[in-house]
């Protein structure tokens, strides 16, 4: 999945990554930092239910609504992929 790096969308994506890695570290009770290149399932033990909990937290903190029905976990392997999806498929709450 392509990663937008510049412009307003890129800035928002960076904000999503920043918030997401913080929330993930807390939810997973990890002392080591969560990074953008970490694989959701293999390294972080992601499930669809856990993913929804994460989205709820992100929606609250970023004051957005995510188009969750469009999520395809098969093309979201890493934390960065998920951040890209959220940045591109969300609207202000």
């Amino acid at each position, binding site marked *: 999945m392509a990663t937008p790096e510049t412009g307003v969308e890129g800035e928002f994506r960076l904000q999503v990554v920043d918030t997401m890695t913080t929330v993930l570290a807390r939810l997973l009770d990890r002392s080591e930092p969560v990074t953008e290149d970490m694989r959701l399932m293999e390294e972080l033990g992601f*499930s*669809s*239910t856990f993913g*929804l*909990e994460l*989205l*709820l937290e992100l*929606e609250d903190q970023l004051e957005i609504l995510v188009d*969750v*029905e*469009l*999520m*395809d*976990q098969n093309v979201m392997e890493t934390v960065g992929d998920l951040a890209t999806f959220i940045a591109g498929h969300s609207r202000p709450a």
Partner: protein
Amino acid sequence: MTALEGVSVYLPSARIPIESLAGPLGLTGMQVKLFRRFHGLSEISRDPDGSLYDLLMKAATGLTALRGQEHRVRYVLYARAMPVVAPYPVNPLHEVCRALGLGHALAFTVTHQSCAGGLLAIDIAGRLLAADTADGPDGPDGPDGQHNGSGPLALVLSGEKAFTRAAQMFADTTVFGEGASACLVSAFGVRDRLLAYASNVRGEFDSATGENDARLQREYRPSLAEVMQQALDEAGLTLDDIRVVLPHNVNLVTWQRMCTLLKFPRERVVLDNIAVSGHVFCVDMFANYQTARERGLLQPGDRYLAAAVGAGGGATFAAMVFEH
């Protein structure tokens, strides 16, 4: 051809807000928010004063197609998710049969496919009735007899009390409501004809061990899409031929994602009851059928697809195609 002669549904008018279930079910604030925001579960139907017998009777006595036809009912099938619902020798099914004047009918329970059991019961009912017509189409039980209003019928009941914690919630997936349905089935009816039935039983998804829970989450939607396609193939149809989908009411986001996966318009999936009733076990398909008719979504000749997943001691993915 198996056909639905009539459908009646009873959903209790009492509604419990999902927040009120947090204490009894031990839900965290996060889980309540998840149910409401993503799963679309706002209220759950409950009948705190009604017994299982009461639930089934309310659905059955609302079945106008049954009135005056009791003598034609040869089988009563009770589809339910829970394997045991009353202490021996109490048997709500037999009590209902006696009260309805159906003591002569062969009555039995269809279970072990959880919430997909309703579709299985329709299939069994149709096949039992068809087998009774082995004396040929000109016999009293054949198609001519049916059209003359004298052929045999089967009554398919479903409904449960959510009487234990396990019966009230599937962790982080759904919350169960109470309700019941009654459906009159014939072997040769002309309306709501069953065109195809497909079912895949996946014993490896046993929630008791939990070993394959993550895999079930991953394969849930593709497996459901697969069985829907199998039913369509058997009917010689494609999704483009389907006017509406009658889902099981597991939750909203699952069906929103199913629509994305299937490229099927969300407005043609009857999702109305999820928010107000919760997942009512095997009753969902019948409740959604009734809603589709009330909303005028089904016109004569329309084809529709009912789909359900029963998860528990193994998982069953099932789908039926009907013509209205």
